[in-house]
């Protein structure tokens, strides 16, 4: 059993608090992604779990054991670094077996476990090479192999794919997912890339400025963002977010344009409330070119001028001008459009979001 439990975990450097007493329960064999912009405290949190940073307050339990003051080696974890951190003076084989050597494992046990790890990751051909003779993707695999060999309770990944090019990143992402299916350990994965988080994790923890904004499954954080920040962070292209005021059952935007107040928010708002209206590009589309949500009654149609288009092959991102700014929409089964064309656009208001302008919290719940 390797549950990980963080209670009121705090990190301070001098007078500056970086992580503000976060709480998080991670189940055994769960794949958790910590995601957020740079400086949000996600890497610091990971390094505190690893024991590479002292904690300033709170508690860390791994597998039911409090590890607050234990050195990294006593926590039975392994970590894959963003920089890979392979030992350059050792061959791949020695890199993989280093932790076993330090632990004083028997030679044949060591050989067997190195062979197992190298088979899982396809490193057999590379065992006698040094890290300098490997490509980026191969180094990444060796770094993961070094983590597997230890058979740890918890795997920690610190932005492991950010140094790879886009194609290799997609490929390694799949490998990490397969790896988790094989080794079935608890994984804590730090990334700033929301696509990695969405595709890999069982649950996503979205952090901002040392606080947890939301914890949820990929579907939850995408469909029911708890805050305006989460709504803007998750999803690509990002959600359209615009400030508005509630007035007579309508949302009036600063430029004077307005939309009907989505029905689900009728009881949750009062006239004069300042809110932030959010709609994903998938729910705002050229009429006839979107995903139907089934809530036809809530679709609001309007004719808008196109300001720019970004064709992606199977779909086109259409930037339509509304309330004086560009709103991005996703056009499925695209047809050619050019700037200045006026087209019918649909707002699927049943899937729209409202956040409090003051607190940023979702008004859905």
């Amino acid at each position, binding site marked *: 059993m390797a549950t990980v439990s963080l209670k009121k975990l705090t990190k301070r450097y001098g007078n500056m608090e970086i992580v503000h007493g976060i709480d998080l329960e991670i189940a055994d064999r769960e794949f958790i992604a910590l995601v957020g912009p740079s400086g949000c405290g996600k890497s610091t949190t990971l390094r505190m779990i*690893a*024991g*590479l940073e002292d904690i300033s307050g709170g508690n860390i339990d791994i597998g039911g054991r409090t590890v607050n003051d234990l*050195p*990294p*080696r006593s926590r039975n*974890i*392994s*970590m894959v*670094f*963003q*920089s*890979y*951190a*392979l*030992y*350059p*003076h050792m061959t791949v084989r020695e890199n993989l077996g*280093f*932790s076993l050597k*330090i*632990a004083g494992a028997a030679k044949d046990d060591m050989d067997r476990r190195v062979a197992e790890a190298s088979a899982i990751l396809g490193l057999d051909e590379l065992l006698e090479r*040094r*890290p*300098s*003779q*490997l490509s*980026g993707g191969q*180094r990444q695999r060796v770094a993961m192999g*070094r983590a597997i060999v*230890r058979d740890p309770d918890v795997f920690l990944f610190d932005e492991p794919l950010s*140094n790879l090019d886009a194609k290799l990143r997609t490929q390694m992402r799949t490998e990490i997912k397969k790896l988790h299916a094989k080794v079935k350990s608890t994984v804590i994965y730090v990334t700033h890339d929301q696509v990695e988080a969405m595709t890999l994790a069982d649950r996503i923890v979205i952090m901002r400025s040392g606080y947890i904004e939301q914890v949820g499954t990929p579907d939850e954080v995408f469909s029911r963002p708890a805050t305006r920040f989460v709504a803007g962070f998750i999803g690509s292209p990002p959600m359209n977010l615009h400030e508005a005021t509630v007035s007579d059952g309508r949302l009036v935007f600063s430029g004077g344009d307005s939309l009907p107040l989505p029905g689900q928010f009728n009881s949750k708002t009062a006239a004069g409330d300042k809110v932030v209206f959010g709609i994903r590009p998938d729910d705002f589309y050229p009429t006839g070119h979107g995903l139907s949500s089934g809530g036809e009654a809530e679709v609001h149609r309007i004719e808008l001028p196109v300001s720019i288009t970004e064709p992606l092959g199977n779909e086109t991102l259409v930037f339509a001008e509304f309330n004086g700014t560009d709103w991005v929409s996703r056009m499925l089964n695209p047809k050619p459009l050019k700037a200045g064309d006026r087209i019918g656009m649909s707002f699927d208001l049943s899937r729209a979001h409202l956040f409090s302008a003051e607190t940023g919290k979702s008004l859905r719940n």
Partner: protein
Amino acid sequence: MDENASARLTRRALTVAHRVSLFLAMLVICLPGIWIVLSSLRPTVEIMAKPPVWIPQEVSLDAYIAMFSGIGKGGIPVLDYFRNSLIISVTSTVIAVAIGMAGGYAFARYRFRGKSGMFLGLMLTRTVPGIALSLPLFFLYVRLGIIDTHIGMILAYVALNVPFTIWLIDGFFRQVPKDLAEAAQIDGCTRWQAFWQVEFPLARPGIASAAIFAFLTCWNEFALASQLTRSVNSKTLPVGLLDYTAEFTIDWRGMCALAVVMIIPALTLTYIVQKHLVGGLTSGAVKG
């Protein structure tokens, strides 16, 4: 002649010119050394001749034989000097490198109050000419009673070398990514093991160069040694060279022979250590 043939010819001519100029440059660099070796093998008349005699007429090992012949037969206590030089140089090098490793590591890895000031202070000590310190040092040593002792010389040389070894080793530890020591700790190492298993092997070229520099500084140092040593108890080889000067004469041949005896261990050591000087070992550790 077609274009390719003429390009080929130009390239060959350039290669030849390149090699000839390299040879001339090396000749200029090596000439003093060669001259010392030649002078140790021929009589003073020939050494002092004007115009100079380039090709030795009479070659003999007399100077070397005399050097080891003992007092009274033109010999000097060369074995004592050699022993002193070796003890003083090796001990002070080992101490200076040990302190340099500890200090260099601290400067490279840790943040502490007054760090840059301390580092600057260490560097400033190098701006004081050693000879300017010899008189104060002499008085101090006399009071302490460590004049003409190994320990006195070792202390002086450690102080001379430590700023340099710290500076050099600091630079090499900075090149070893911090992630490596952290990865080693996650892999089960203590802080101490992580240092010896991972960081030390990667900084070894730097530590080896610091060691060579420290050793050669001690081995060749004359100014301080000539003030702080008195007898065969502690006189080092460079000071021993003075034994060949008398009131009215200088035995140039003997002096050159002793110089050759001094050069050989230094060359041998440099040769042995240079294989550790292979740089670029850290490549491939991290992204790149």
